[in-house]
């Protein structure tokens, strides 16, 4: 055995077959050739590389194989639940005859420089099971203020691979609102691929409120054209295992993105937020702003990277991840990264991890506010800046409501060992 093979074997989980076991029956269906070829390519890659394990740097705190071993999942097909401006959305499965060329190109595109053991490993698994796709195509100039609401059904012991393909045409404006609330044992390995064309804006809001039996892996990739904007906000509460992975490519001059979120983590929850922003054009702006509140035995992970390519002069890149850790058994892992090849850029990154400020807590209590309520007020204040950055007002109000619900049930008092 060569040294290289040994090295690779260390990274390979031994239970990729658990995830692939229902693949044969899917591949037996009569999908068109391009779909079959695409599935086969995904399958081959997973057979070779396996599933991501904590031995890989990018998945260090995200132990999917351990979770999977405890499950008895089977691959299942499902139907998207959508509400709102649904006339821009269509579902493709079975014969895939309604998949337009642009969507097919986006689905099958192979990213340059993809690494075998990189962030896209779970996307390849989803490729192998490519079946249920929601295609959202917003024509040029359409200004839609009402969000499209999307839910994935709650199926017990299901392994689901939803795929959402979005194109927001030039100067159009569209908002997608995803709500995930699995109460059963379920693995939702979701792919969402987004193109925001020139001058357009796409607002992408997500609530991950899945139960403690669930695993939710979200693989988001976004192409933002010149003068276009991508605004994402993800609220992760609930429990369970999750990975919110976002790759944004700012491809045209003056493109911008906000990839923000709040993680409210309790019990044995494990939530991984992994963000990469590729600045590929000059004068682009990116902003990553996260607040993490971690209590009980929960674990939070934030790894955010800004990669400024040589051509991306006058980049404005900002990254901040602040965390409050409320118990001795709670953990927060933060890894901010900047990789800069252009010489005229403005980039900053910051990360803090701390407890609730005793001075502020005493001040509030000395005014008659009971301790639990005082803690709750300070936590709301801690996350408020990120909520203020949500441009859709109804969503920001909804987030405030969900936050107060979480605060009323979570244990907020610092538990010493």
């Amino acid at each position, binding site marked *: 055995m060569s040294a290289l093979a040994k090295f690779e074997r260390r990274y390979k989980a031994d239970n990729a077959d658990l995830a692939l076991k229902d693949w044969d029956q899917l591949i037996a269906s009569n999908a068109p050739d391009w779909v079959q070829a695409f599935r086969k390519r995904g399958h081959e890659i997973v057979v070779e590389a396996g599933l991501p394990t904590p031995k890989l740097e990018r998945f260090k705190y995200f132990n999917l194989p351990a979770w999977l071993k405890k499950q008895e999942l089977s691959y299942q097909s499902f139907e998207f639940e959508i509400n709102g401006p649904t006339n821009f959305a269509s579902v493709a499965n079975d014969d895939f005859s309604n998949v337009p060329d642009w969507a097919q190109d986006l689905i099958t595109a192979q990213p340059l420089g993809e690494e075998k053991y990189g962030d896209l490993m779970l996307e390849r698994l989803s490729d192998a099971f490519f079946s249920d796709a929601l295609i959202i195509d917003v024509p040029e100039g359409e200004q839609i203020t009402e969000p499209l609401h999307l839910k994935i059904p709650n199926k017990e012991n299901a392994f689901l691979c939803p795929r959402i393909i979005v194109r927001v045409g030039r100067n159009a404006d569209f908002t997608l609102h995803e709500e995930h609330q699995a109460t059963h044992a379920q693995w939702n390995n979701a792919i969402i691929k987004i193109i925001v064309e020139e001058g357009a804006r796409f607002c992408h809001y997500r609530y991950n409120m899945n139960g403690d039996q669930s695993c939710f892996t979200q693989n988001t990739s976004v192409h933002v054209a010149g003068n276009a904007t991508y605004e994402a906000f993800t609220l992760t509460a609930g429990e369970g295992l999750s990975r919110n992975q976002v790759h944004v490519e700012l491809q045209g001059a003056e493109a911008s993105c906000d990839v923000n979120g709040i993680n409210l983590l309790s019990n044995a929850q494990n939530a991984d937020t992994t963000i990469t922003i590729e600045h590929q054009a000059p004068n682009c702006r990116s902003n990553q702003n996260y607040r993490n509140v971690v209590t009980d035995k929960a674990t939070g992970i934030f790894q955010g990277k800004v990669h400024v390519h040589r051509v991306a002069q006058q980049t404005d890149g900002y990254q901040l991840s602040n965390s409050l850790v409320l118990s001795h058994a709670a953990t927060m892992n933060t890894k901010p990264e900047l990789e800069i090849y252009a010489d005229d850029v403005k980039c900053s990154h910051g990360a803090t991890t701390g407890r609730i400020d005793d001075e*502020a807590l005493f*001040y509030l*209590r000395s*005014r008659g506010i009971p301790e639990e309520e005082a803690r709750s007020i300070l936590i709301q*204040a801690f996350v408020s*800046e990120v909520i203020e950055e949500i441009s859709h007002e109804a969503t920001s109000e909804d987030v405030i409501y969900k936050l107060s619900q979480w605060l009323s049930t979570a244990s907020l008092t610092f538990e010493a060992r």
Partner: protein
Amino acid sequence: MIEIKNLHAEIEGKEILSGLDLTIGNGEVHAIMGPNGAGKSTLAYILAGREDYEVTKGSIELDAEDILEMDPDERAAAGVFLAFQYPVEIPGVQMTTFLKTALNAVRKARGQEELDAIGLLKLMKSTCQKLGISDDMMKRAVNVGFSGGEKKRNEVLQMAMLEPKFAVLDETDSGLDIDALRIVADGVNALREQNRSFLVITHYQRLLDYIKPDKVHVLADGKIAKTGGPELALELEDKGYAEFTGEKAA
């Protein structure tokens, strides 16, 4: 009426108060003066219930009720108020939210009806007016970006709204120019009434020109070293605290 008897307190094993006795009758204003490090701020924090200090001996009673076992918020409901020497900045918490939460928590604990947003706004406006405070302070986060004077006025505003039986002013004069000092003192004087006692902690006599005390105490080495009328403050201004610290006057 507040009665402190034989109060001993320490922090991290170091004794700060060692047998302090003090009684303040209803409607009275007492001043505590003393050299730096005598334990003045410790006393203020202990009265408000700060947990960093351990009371090892003695008692504190407000209207014959023991407050030592109470949490800070319970003390506030019982009628204790501390105006902080350094009011804490709390980014992200709006003044109105803060005042509403505090006032309603206290009202609830006292068995009074809670105020709705409109009722609170009215009360806030009228209180600001009464104290000569501009109400645009209310649109900001608690103490964030407030000048020294604004922070102290904000303390007086909170005091006025929470209607304590016993208010402790911890070095309220520190960092204030003469105009700001006058506004704050006027606010305090407007709150003087028969059923409210004050303890004014200060290093300098200046504040007592504006808030006339009934009695002046000197705190040195963790206990009351001397008690007198307002004239004692003037005497201290003249002679300094050398008599109490064993050092020569500068």
